[in-house]
Structure formats: structure tokens, C-alpha cells
């Protein structure tokens, strides 16, 4: 299986396809929810920031909906056979929005910049030995060890390239230019009217001729979900990103004339929802109780009613969209009797459990209510805890819960987005993105570690299958749903979603049929 991967795409060839039908001009109004705290993608990687700043900043690569790397700032790249060297060839003639030329020095600077400010980047780059720029258009990354998922870490959200000429030698966090972000992307920042809208405009000097097509982008801030639905209905906005309206509205909106929807564009993230079950104490520390919970939950009902049929009931920790998924695992259908049996077997004494919902709107609240109802049907007493975002973070990070809703992104590879929730070295108080449930299985820890640096994909698959089987048996968390966030848009907006991160970098190619 040793071979040299070489991928070279000709930009011109890509442009040729369907260019005749594409129209330039127009203005597109999109919803961004909630309002991003900042647009400086190197410093802040919130969902909404990524969605807006993904048009301003670019990564070295993009990924299509099958999660295959595509050129972006790097027009081509090579990975050495042993997986120890990555070489990127950058596009020429790229300039920053302020007119300064872009070069490999910016990329090298970015790796330093992000080390300080980007946790996910920091984790991925812990496998990196060095980053060098042999010439202005080439970047060479040397690894400490082979790390399979590395090639999945170069999109704009994972590694946004930031301008060295602005940040070098300054205090990044207080740099005044953070308010007016400068990137290389297809759209330039114009204005941010806080609480109202963010206006981006076409970058006329974009290095790919003919792109982008749309003149102006308006990201509208509408804090109330119902009002967002109204905004779409009245035509004030044309694009509702996933999660912008409550699920109950999705059906109604998509049934309107001239409205299209797609659940594509989330493949890279593959949001996976579950409840952390506190493995340390209380009834949830008993495996039988956790299994009983799995049997008690009517996950199909929730998918159909709460999520309006969107999404998929997961089989285990790895999303079916993510690489190395396996469905050869123990199954947990909705079976209240089985749940009661398990509870009787463990001798559950009726200790009430607290369920902490995710404070992200009505859908999640309803979900918690449905879970409560399911659990009470098998005799588990449930109190729903309440907390806002800060409270939720505080409670989960400090393990102050019995059962807590969450969902996390998987970033295309179990090593990037899954392992962090199940290995013992990730049991660290103070953060809600690690092994919060407190699951410890030394044997599996070894397998996780081996799988991450295994260069052979078949062997990786084998290891991940074993891991999935064991974890599903142990039920450290109750997997609820592979979430799908349908993007709803007016059908005259074309080519909107072409990549695995969807709207986050999709507007480069989008155009509007007049």
C-alpha cells in the first residue's frame, strides 16, 4: 500500500464546468445565529464566526462532501509515503484584502499564531516536528510520527491562514485590526452593525478569475427563532443555515414554493448528540443502569417528532458519516421491558437523576422533556436541571450532573473528533469537550492510541471497529442522534453547498439566478 499520493487540480478545469450558466451579481442575505463575538477566525472559532469568516479567511485546503481534500490556498500538495512529510504548493499572485502579497511566510506565521489561540489546531500540531518555507510558494511540514487524520486539518476553520504583516510582533488579542479582519478569501469585510448585520462584499482581486459571483453578502442577526422564520418567509433573507429555525418550522418552510433544502454541508462536522452519563457516581455509575437508559429511550420517536425526521439514530460513538464507522455493534432498540429488567437486576432504588439539557433552544428543551418522559415510564425519577450556556458549561466541566445533553463535531476522523471523549487521558476537570463522563478503559486507550498513528487504513478500521464494539457494550454515554441540520434556501441560489463544511466556505462558488 506504499504509494505517493499526488493530487493536482487545475483550477481552470473546474471553472470550465457549468460556467456558461452561472450569473454574476446580486446580493445574498443569510441568517447568522447567534451573533458571532468576533470575526477574527484565528482567535475565535465559534460556529457563527466560522460561518462568516470562512468567506474572509481561507485554509490551505477545502474538503468536498466525501471529505476528500480539495485545493484552496494550496493549489497542490504531496504526502510522503511514510506519512512524515507534507508539502504544500501555494497559489501564486494571491493578495490579502489590504493589497499586501500573500506568501509561505504567512503560513509559517499562522502555525505559530494558532498554537497560541486555537485548541484544535494545537492538538493536531502536537504531532508536528517543524514547519518550513523553502520558497515563497512552498510550505513543508515535518511530522514527529505518522498521523493519519492530519490531512483533514487544513480547512478554514481548522487552520485559517492569518496575515503575518498585521499580527507579527503584536498582542494578538488586542490588535485593533481584529475589528476589520483581513484575509485572502473571496469576500472582504465591509461593515458590522452590531446586533443587526454583517456586510461582506466581493473581493475583486480574488485569485481565481470569475469568482466569486455574488456582489454583497449580508449576514443578518435575528435573535428570535420565530422572527428568523418570518424573515425567510417574507423574503428578507434567502438562506437559513442549519439550526437557524426550530425544527418544527423546517417542514413548513421547505414546503413553500421556490424553497430548497439540503442536509449536505455538515459531513466534515458530523454533529453527534448524546447524553453524558456520569460514570463516577450515582445510579449512572452502574453499567446496567446506563444500558437500561439506552433501552428506555425512544430515539426514533425523538428523531421523528423533535427533529422532524431529520438525522439518524446512531449505533455508537462514531457517526455513520465519519471515516472508520462500523455498525457491527450491540443494538439498543426501544425496549422499556428490557430496561425495567435491567433496573430490577441492579436493584435501582429510585434515586432521582438530574438531566441537564443543552441550552440551545426549544428543540433541545423538548428533547430533554421527551427523555424525562421515557425514563419515568421505566421507573427512573428525573428532575430536569436548568442552566444557560455558561451554567451548562460550568456544570459539565465540573462534572456536576447525572445526565447531560451535548453534541460534538467529529471532524471527519475518529482520532480528531471521537477519541477525545472516551480516553482516560482526556479526563480533565474544567472542560466540557473531553471525557466528561469519566469513562476509563485502559485497554481501549491503547487501541485509540495505536489507531491514531496507524498508517494503514484497513488496520485502522479494524482497531476502530473493536473500539466501537466495546464502547457500545459499556454505554459510557447515551448516544442519541446523528444530527442533520438542513440548510434551507431559495432555489434561485445555486451552488450554495459544495463542500463538507457547507456554508462555512460555500459562498465562493455560489451564484444567484436572476
Amino acid at each position, binding site marked *: 500500500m506504499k504509494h505517493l499520493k499526488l493530487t493536482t487540480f487545475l483550477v481552470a478545469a473546474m471553472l470550465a464546468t457549468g460556467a456558461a450558466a452561472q450569473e454574476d451579481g446580486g*446580493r445574498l*442575505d443569510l441568517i447568522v445565529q*447567534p*451573533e458571532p*463575538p*468576533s470575526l*477574527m477566525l484565528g482567535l*475565535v*472559532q*465559534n*460556529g457563527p464566526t466560522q460561518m462568516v469568516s470562512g468567506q474572509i479567511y481561507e485554509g490551505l485546503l477545502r474538503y468536498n462532501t466525501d471529505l476528500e481534500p480539495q485545493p484552496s490556498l494550496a493549489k497542490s500538495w504531496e504526502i510522503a509515503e511514510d506519512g512524515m512529510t507534507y508539502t504544500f504548493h501555494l497559489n501564486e499572485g494571491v493578495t490579502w484584502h489590504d493589497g499586501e502579497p500573500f506568501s509561505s511566510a504567512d503560513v509559517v506565521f499562522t502555525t505559530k499564531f494558532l498554537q*497560541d*489561540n486555537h*485548541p*484544535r489546531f*494545537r*492538538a493536531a500540531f502536537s504531532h508536528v516536528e517543524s514547519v518550513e518555507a523553502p520558497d515563497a510558494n512552498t510550505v513543508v511540514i515535518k511530522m514527529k510520527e505518522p498521523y493519519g487524520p492530519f490531512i483533514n486539518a487544513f480547512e478554514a476553520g481548522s487552520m485559517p491562514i492569518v496575515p503575518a504583516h498585521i499580527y507579527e510582533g503584536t498582542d494578538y*488579542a488586542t490588535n485593533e485590526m*481584529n*475589528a476589520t479582519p483581513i484575509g485572502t478569501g473571496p469576500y472582504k469585510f465591509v461593515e458590522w*452593525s*452590531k*446586533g*443587526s*448585520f454583517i*456586510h461582506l462584499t466581493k473581493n475583486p482581486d480574488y485569485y481565481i478569475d470569475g469568482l466569486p459571483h455574488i456582489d*454583497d453578502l*449580508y449576514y*443578518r*442577526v*435575528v*435573535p*428570535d427563532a*420565530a*422572527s428568523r422564520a*418570518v*424573515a425567510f*418567509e*417574507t423574503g*428578507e433573507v434567502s438562506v437559513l443555515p442549519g439550526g437557524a429555525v426550530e425544527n418544527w418550522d423546517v417542514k413548513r418552510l421547505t414546503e413553500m414554493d421556490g424553497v430548497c433544502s439540503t442536509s449536505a454541508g455538515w459531513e466534515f462536522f458530523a454533529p453527534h448528540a448524546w447524553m453524558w452519563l456520569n460514570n463516577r457516581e450515582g445510579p449512572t455509575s452502574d453499567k446496567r443502569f446506563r444500558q437500561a437508559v439506552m433501552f428506555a429511550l425512544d430515539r426514533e420517536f425523538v428523531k421523528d417528532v423533535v427533529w422532524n425526521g431529520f438525522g439518524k439514530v446512531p449505533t455508537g460513538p462514531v457517526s455513520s458519516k465519519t471515516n472508520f464507522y462500523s455498525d457491527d455493534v450491540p443494538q439498543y432498540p426501544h425496549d422499556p421491558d428490557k430496561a425495567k429488567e435491567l433496573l430490577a437486576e441492579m436493584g435501582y432504588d429510585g434515586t432521582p437523576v438530574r438531566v441537564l439539557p443543552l*441550552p440551545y433552544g426549544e428543540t433541545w428543551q423538548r428533547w430533554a422533556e421527551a427523555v424525562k418522559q421515557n425514563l419515568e415510564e421505566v421507573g427512573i425519577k428525573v428532575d430536569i436541571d436548568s*442552566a*444557560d*450556556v*455558561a*451554567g*451548562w*458549561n*460550568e*456544570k459539565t*466541566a465540573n462534572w456536576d450532573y447525572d445526565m447531560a445533553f451535548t453534541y*460534538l*463535531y467529529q471532524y471527519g476522523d475518529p482520532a480528531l473528533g471521537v477519541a*477525545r471523549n472516551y480516553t482516560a487521558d482526556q479526563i*480533565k476537570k*474544567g*472542560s*466540557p*469537550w*473531553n471525557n466528561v463522563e469519566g469513562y476509563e478503559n485502559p485497554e481501549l486507550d491503547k487501541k485509540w492510541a495505536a489507531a491514531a498513528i496507524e498508517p494503514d487504513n484497513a488496520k485502522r478500521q479494524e482497531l476502530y471497529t473493536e473500539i466501537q464494539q466495546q464502547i457500545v457494550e459499556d454505554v459510557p454515554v447515551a448516544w442519541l442522534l446523528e444530527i442533520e441540520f438542513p440548510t434551507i434556501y431559495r432555489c434561485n441560489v445555486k451552488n450554495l453547498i459544495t463542500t463538507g463544511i457547507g456554508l462555512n466556505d460555500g459562498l465562493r462558488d455560489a451564484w444567484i439566478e436572476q
Partner: protein
Amino acid sequence: MAIAGTIFGRLLKAALTLLAIAVLNFFLIHAAPGDPAVVLAGEAGAADEQMIADLRAQFGLDQPLYVQLYRYVGNILTLDLGYSFRQGAPVLDLILERLPATLILTLTAFWISLLAGVALGVAASARVGKFTDSLITGTALLFYATPLYWAALMAVLVFSVQLGWLPGFGYETVGSGYGGFDRAIDILKHLILPALTLGLFFMAVYMRMTRASMLEVAQQDFVKTARAKGLAPSVIRRRHILRNALLPVVTLAGLQAGQLVGGAVLTETVFAWPGIGRLMFESLAARDYNTILGVFLVSALMVIIFNIITDIVYRLIDPRIGQKA
């Protein structure tokens, strides 16, 4: 002279009140679970302890609480509301950016409710016991009992979605390129629904107050004097009854005008109005300490300013105040 002296006194008292509010709220906010670093990290979807620690150090949250309080009060005393690390901008700038929207909304709602409320109250009192009176009183009672947010939702549903007459949310047509007069008209259109729904409740309040006050004043001796002069009933009502009846309404209006800021949280949420009410609500969820405190201070300041304005208005209407002593 008396007015100037009083205003100076009021301002001094106001400054102390504001300082006390700053301190109280400082403790309140810090008592809430979580902190801005946790929220910010949480929203990133992935973070580690180092990131949170970095953020805390950057926000100054690694210091003991009393040091933070000392710094904050120090800032306040130099009229500096601090920096919003979350939004990467000075709090004052954030607030000033949003304040006009809130002021336009609340002041419009205030004037609509006051003028309409007084007019309806006068009309009802003039026909006391008759059908018109029952109609006005009944309607006001209904407004009084209707939750604000519910009225707002219904208004959007009817006037924006069903009829399409008015924009359902927002402050202005984004990117319209309107300037000057066109822009004003545009904002006005956006303003109608939120201002009306925010004003409804208060209109009911003022209406009831005006009506009761008119009826009470109408019983007073000087009204009899006016009638004994042979003045026409309309003149009596306008010149003698209304002016006196307005005094308690002015007091109430002054008290409530400040409270409109609180009511604006709901209205601004439903109508996506980019004002400070929403800024507060969002900052609260994000534990953006400085911003919440800033909004509280500014809204308390508005309450105080409204109270002072009320005092002045009261003095202008009522010659007795401030000269008696």
C-alpha cells in the same frame, strides 16, 4: 436657581446610586455560574484548559474578586465602562452603538402610550359611565392584561406575515443604501410594530391613571369656581381639570419611562431590534461581565435622567414645587 441646585443635588445622589448599582451588580453577576472564558471556549466547540486559562488571564479573571472589583470601580470613576473581551471592543462603544435604537424605540413607545393614554383617559372621563367610557376602559384593561410578548407575536403574525404591511423585525432595511429622509421613513416603518406593542401596556396604564385623575380633579373646588365663572365645559376640562389631572400622570410616566428599558428586552428580542435590552440579555448568557454591568449602569442612568426630566417637567407644570420652602 432652585432648579439648578436641585439638579446638582440630584446628580450627586445619582452618581452615588450608580456606584452602588455597579457594586451590587458586580457581585450579582459574578455570583452567576460560569464565566466568559468558559462560554467563549464552550462556543468554540472544542477547547482545552490552556485556552480557558489564557482567556481568564486575558480577561483579568484570574485575579481575586476584590482586585477585580477595585479595578472595575476605578474604571467607573474615570467614566470608563471597561472592555468587552468577548466582543473585542470597549463597552462604551458597544452601548453607544446600540443606544440610539433603544432610545428611538422606547421614546416612541413612551410618547405614543402617553399621548394616546392621556387622550383616551380624557375621552373616557368626559363620558363617564357611558358606552364610550366602558369601551375605552375595557380595551385598556385588556391591553393591561395581555402579555407584551404575546401581543408582539400576534402583531407580527397579522401585520407582517399575513398582511405584509410592515416589516416584522429589524431596525432598518439592511443594505438598502437609503440615506437622509428615505432612511428615516424606512426606520419609521420598522419602528411601528415594536413601538406599538411596547407602548400598549403603558398606554393602558396612563389611560386608567388619567381617567381616574380627571374624575378626581373634577370634584375639586376650583372646578366649581371655574364653572361659576361661566366657562364652557370644554375649557374647564382642558384648562382646569386636565392640567391638574396630569400631575400624577407625569409622576407615573417618569417612573415608568425608565422601566421601558426593561420591557424593551422582550420587544427587542421578538422584533430583532438591535438595542441595549438585547445586548444585556445576550451578554448575560455569555457572562460578558463588563458589558452587562455597562448596560445596567446606562439603563439606571436613563432611569435617573428620566426622573430628573420628570422633576423639571413637574416644576414647569406645577409652580408650587420647589418654591414653597
